[in-house]
């Protein structure tokens, strides 16, 4: 965050950028020194400097890496005078993002809509199919090969067909993205519904539990950790699926997604805009992943080994 602001600020002039990055370096150095000098009195005075608190450094480290990489990138672009149509500087990307905000964020919204619809559809379909599969080994044996078939066929190869067959473009895009995101949910949920403590199965049998009671009270809770694992994978896949489908469809106009902006920017050699669209896709993916990770943590809180 700091890195972006810093870079954005410095983007106005070459010298400013150099100055800003050197300031950042100096600040980092200063912080290091401060931390070092603070280490000694901390032992006697009990007050720990926040930088030394456990967890702070761990949380900060990836951001520091990002800042350093962005600073190097910015410096490299400025010093070597790399043309923006080859590699734009981070500052140029951010300023493009700000300039074309209505266009890019409109596209983001379109892509996000496809992604979320596909994710929801894949989750519902995946769970229903998984529940169907565990009802009988025969059902699973007869249908599972086709689920695998679905998984191994590249979506780029089927997307044109779906786009031809389905009239409504949005529906076609959602279908393509759903196909990509579906399989991890099915396979993980099936695995979860089968991974039940055999002792608990016996307990339910001794207590003459019905099939339904065993499913609701035992199999579904046991499957949750696996299901959440599938959810995390599928959140990313539904975004990838949406972008790939948009690429294949190549639809422009007002409802165009981020993939179309990338295509257009590529044709026009507007590389900063290409990078800006890419940045939005990446950030969206990370946010989706973080949300599913949070949901998973909330759902398994306290009892599953992965959350302790």
């Amino acid at each position: 965050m700091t890195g972006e602001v810093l870079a954005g600020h410095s983007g106005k002039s070459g010298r400013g950028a150099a100055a800003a990055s050197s300031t950042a370096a100096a600040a980092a150095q200063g912080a290091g020194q401060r931390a070092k000098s603070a280490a000694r009195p901390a032992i006697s005075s009990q007050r720990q400097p926040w930088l030394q608190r456990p967890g702070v450094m761990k949380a900060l480290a990836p951001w520091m890496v990002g800042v350093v990489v962005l600073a190097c990138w910015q410096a490299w672009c400025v010093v070597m005078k790399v043309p923006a149509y080859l590699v734009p500087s981070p500052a140029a990307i951010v300023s493009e993002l700000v300039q074309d905000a209505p266009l890019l964020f409109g596209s983001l919204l379109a892509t996000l809509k496809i992604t979320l619809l596909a994710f929801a559809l894949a989750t519902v379909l995946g769970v229903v199919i998984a529940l169907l599969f565990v009802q009988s080994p025969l059902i699973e044996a007869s249908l599972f090969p086709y689920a695998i078939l679905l998984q191994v066929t590249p979506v780029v190869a089927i997307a044109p067909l779906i786009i031809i067959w389905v009239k409504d473009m949005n529906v076609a895009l959602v279908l393509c993205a759903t196909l990509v995101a579906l399989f991890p949910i099915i396979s993980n949920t099936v695995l979860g519904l089968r991974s039940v403590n055999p002792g608990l199965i016996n307990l339910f049998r001794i207590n003459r539990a019905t099939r339904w009671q065993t499913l609701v009270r035992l199999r579904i809770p046991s499957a949750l950790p696996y299901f959440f694992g599938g959810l995390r994978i599928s959140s990313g896949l539904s975004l990838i699926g949406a972008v790939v489908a948009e690429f294949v469809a190549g639809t422009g106009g007002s409802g165009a997604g981020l993939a179309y902006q990338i295509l257009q920017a590529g044709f026009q050699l507007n590389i900063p805009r290409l990078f800006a669209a890419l940045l939005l896709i990446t950030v969206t993916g990370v946010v989706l992943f973080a949300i599913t990770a949070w949901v998973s943590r909330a759902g398994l809180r306290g009892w599953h080994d992965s959350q302790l």
Partner: protein
Amino acid sequence: MAATQALIADVAAPSLSVQRVDKRYANGTIALQDVRLAIEPGEFVSLLGPSGCGKSTLLKMFAGIETPTHGHLRWWGQAFETVGSPGRRMSMVFQEATLMPWATVADNVRLPLDLAHVPRREADARVAAALDGVGLAKFGHVLPRELSGGMQMRASLARALVTEPDLLLLDEPFGALDEFTRNCLDSDLRALWQRRGMTVVFVTHSIYEAVYLSSRVVVMQARPGRIIAEVPIEGPLERDDAYRVSEPFMQHCKTLSELIADAHRASLANEETGVQS
């Protein structure tokens, strides 16, 4: 009239009777051979033997989750399918606590009642009583993993007792616990049995545990799994830590360990002659 007769038969019948039961697995292993056993209502019977003697298999048959290859079992004179209809209940405690990790201790204990659609308020009262009975009254709201191994086993025991079973089956329940905790739980189990008077079948490989708890010990031997002796334990009804070091206790332990050692020697000799011939 017919119903009355059935009831009389029911009262007179042993809690469990095992008639010439065999269990063979597909790979040729004989888990149980010609097992005959009757367990009277209110008895505390231990199945004692080394691993592989089929004691757990036999207990699972008592629970109806394992079926014999030959022979048959009767519960209060009835086939398993009709058990439960005249209000006979059975519970089982496993080697591990097998608690649902996502549910609180109280919810775990309530499970058998929930599965039987017992009304919520009645269930709550019975769960509280069951938890109190095993000394976990204050731990109902806690998740299982926050309990020690011994407390988890207590919760498991509470879950088995909450249905007020006529027959309680325990499969080496305290085997994974340290000796002190195990002795403590054994004493509690014995006290519970005396208070409630249900029939108990207890599987163990500890001679001391079997002698301390039981009114009768059924000694089993491996390869093939079979019953080699039934030893009544004539100890005092009230048993405490003093009983563990008393002369009769030691005498029973000695008798049993000699029995097992003899059987082991005999089976070794058998195997040797088998190899020679």
